[in-house]
């Protein structure tokens, strides 16, 4: 039964392959995996690339964000990764640890990609040691989306740039059961962004232990917790926010901390009457405009790719300055190349200009495979503080203990590597 089915599939496949061989030269298609709407938008660009490269076929597969991580790891385990992965920046370190990505340093040197014009945060997040493991394709960071009309009604002309001023605005906006800010408790990005605003690093000693008890990080946690405790932010989980856009439209929240993909969504989904009543602003910091996380997606060539030159030429095609501007027009995703911004008229729009300012201040999160796990636990710790289950200092102590456990293997491997290098040098 299984055999027959397999035989039939094989037969069908060989028929399909041989019939496609009649049309073009015998070249395997270049496989590209990309996530979400960007993956869908990639199709037309791939067709255009095929037109200028006769004989090349590109097969784009779109993965849903929610299942992408599992799918990528499973594909690696099954030795079935595609030629190019559009990898979320926080996952680059993980796939680097798997040794699944091809360093692109040499290929970048003579290419049309102007890597040194990219935002520092974006460059930094794909660079591990001296190896560049991907080319930023689009960038994101978290900042404030806010209702200008509500802010005016509350008596403020411009959004705050410091925590103190923001407190005053949030206090004025959080009344009658309303909350000034929407920041779902189990979304770690806003909390991580607040922590990145301090000078302290989240992980210490070559990222082998947590640094959550440092004063700067503690302040960020205390501030985040106080936003919920004072009723400024709604105590909601991500899954409870069932009608994000209409809640913002109804004025239930004046501020939302979110990313660039919502530029397009807000224009599309908010009612026409509200379209001139929302704007964006950099995240307030402890003493002035604060940093935020450098996120985004980068195109990585896998080591498993059988045609790395072709794969890189597609990356080059997608990530050069001109094409980044084009991709912005197609999707609204922000280009990592600073020169693409004026090309796409991004500097004239105040909403995107705020993103430019925020991106210049963006800092990458720790580049270790364990990061996402630790970041998720950060929200767990914060949640326990907000719900009054533990005090802040105990929560942070446990968070350090958690990070210590999670990073145990990394410490062992680094120690082994060092002793190996030492004995190699001697």
């Amino acid at each position, binding site marked *: 039964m299984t055999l027959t089915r397999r035989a039939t599939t094989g037969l069908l496949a060989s028929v399909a392959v041989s019939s496609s061989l009649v049309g073009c030269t015998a070249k395997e298609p270049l496989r590209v995996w990309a996530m979400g709407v960007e993956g869908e938008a990639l199709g037309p660009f791939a067709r255009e690339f095929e037109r200028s490269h006769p004989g090349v076929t590109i097969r784009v597969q779109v993965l849903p964000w929610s299942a992408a*991580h*599992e799918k990528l*790891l499973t594909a*690696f*385990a099954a030795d079935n990764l595609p030629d190019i992965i559009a990898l979320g920046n926080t996952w680059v370190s*993980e796939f680097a*640890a*798997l*040794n*699944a990505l091809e360093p692109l340093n040499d290929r970048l040197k003579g290419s049309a990609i102007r890597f040194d014009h990219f935002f520092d945060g974006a460059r930094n997040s794909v660079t591990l040691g001296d190896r560049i493991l991907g080319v930023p394709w689009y960038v994101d960071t978290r900042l404030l989306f806010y209702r200008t009309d509500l802010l005016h009604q509350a008596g403020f002309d411009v959004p705050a740039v410091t925590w103190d001023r923001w407190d005053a605005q949030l206090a004025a906006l959080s009344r009658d059961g309303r909350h000034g800010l929407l920041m779902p*408790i*189990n979304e770690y990005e806003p909390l991580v962004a607040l922590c990145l605003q301090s000078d302290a690093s989240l992980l210490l000693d070559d990222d082998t232990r947590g640094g959550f008890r440092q004063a700067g990080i503690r302040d960020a946690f205390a501030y985040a917790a106080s936003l919920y405790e004072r009723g400024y932010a709604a*105590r*909601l*989980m*991500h*899954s*409870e926010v*069932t*009608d994000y856009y209409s809640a913002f439209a109804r004025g239930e929240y004046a501020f939302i901390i979110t990313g660039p993909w919502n530029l397009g969504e807000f224009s599309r989904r908010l009612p026409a009457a509200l379209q001139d009543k929302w704007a964006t602003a950099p995240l307030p910091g402890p003493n002035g405009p604060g940093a935020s996380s450098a996120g985004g997606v980068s195109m990585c060539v896998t080591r498993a790719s059988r045609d790395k030159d072709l794969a890189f030429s597609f990356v080059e095609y997608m990530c050069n300055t001109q094409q980044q501007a084009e991709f912005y027009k197609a999707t609204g995703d922000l280009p990592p190349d600073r020169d693409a911004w004026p090309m796409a008229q991004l500097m004239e729009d105040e909403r995107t200009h705020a993103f430019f300012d925020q991106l210049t201040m963006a800092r990458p999160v720790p580049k270790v*495979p*364990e990061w*996402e*796990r630790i970041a998720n636990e950060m929200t*767990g710790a914060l*949640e*326990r503080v907000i*719900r009054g*289950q533990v005090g802040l200092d105990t929560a942070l102590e446990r968070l350090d203990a958690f990070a210590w*456990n999670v990073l145990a*293997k*990394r410490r062992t*491997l680094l120690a082994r590597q060092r002793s190996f290098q030492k004995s190699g040098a001697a």
Partner: protein
Amino acid sequence: MSYDLRRSLLLGLKHLSPGHVFVAPALLILFVFFLAPVAGAFVMSFTDFDIYALADLKNLSFIGFDNYISLLGSPLFWKAFGNTAYFALVGTPLSIAVSLGLAMALNTPGVGLKPVFRTVLFGPYVATLVAAAIIWRYMVDFQYGWVNRGLGVVGVPPIDWLGDPHWSMPAIILFAVWKNFGYNMLILLAALQKIPDELYESARVDGAGPWSRFLHVTLPGVSPVLWMVALLTVAGYFQLFAEPYVMTQGGPAQSTFSLLYYMYQDGFKYWNLGHASATAFILFAILIGISFIRNRSQETFA
């Protein structure tokens, strides 16, 4: 030596009956897709298999019982265990009470349109779990959900079903009961129909009221089936996963974080397969334990 081996092989072949040949394909499939992976997972539960090991097997080491020890010492594991036990031990009696109640209602003589009721009541069981869970998520929404609207009509203040750590598990239990009662109801209905009417009649003649008829005729009549249904339900409920995955992602404050959810997150999200396998085997041990309860109690009750 080799002669002996050949002889014993031949002897073995002679004893093969057609039955063996018939079950061989099924056994093969069972071995390849069930026993072998289970054995692999068991071995893996004694290693520190993680993404570093996936990159290079040199990074894999046998760590004995460390996974089990660290699990038993981890508050998160006990939290997940407590939540799962809460779900199973509260959910099962409730689920069976609802199933039995509805089965008895369906079994009442003189109720019309029985096939229609039976089909409608079986509906939730057939519905896709994930789709139903998403709809429930909307129904129990704090502000706009029907459930809170309905409660409001009778004067109960709105409950933050999925946002309050005290209410999230009850909400999930209610959903699971609603989703699963149909199956048990059908089995219990079949058992109820086997109880001879004469027993009820003679009980009535002897002056037994509805409650003592239920206690002395219905319950003993369905008790073997009731136990089977209860234990299957407990075993099923210990494998709680999809409901919190869809409705709460284990939150709020990890109040709906189950053992299987822990295993999934550990294994497939963070790729700590060694650790996750250990969790799986602890769950396995719990389920085996539950099935032992069945054997003994069936003797006493049936």
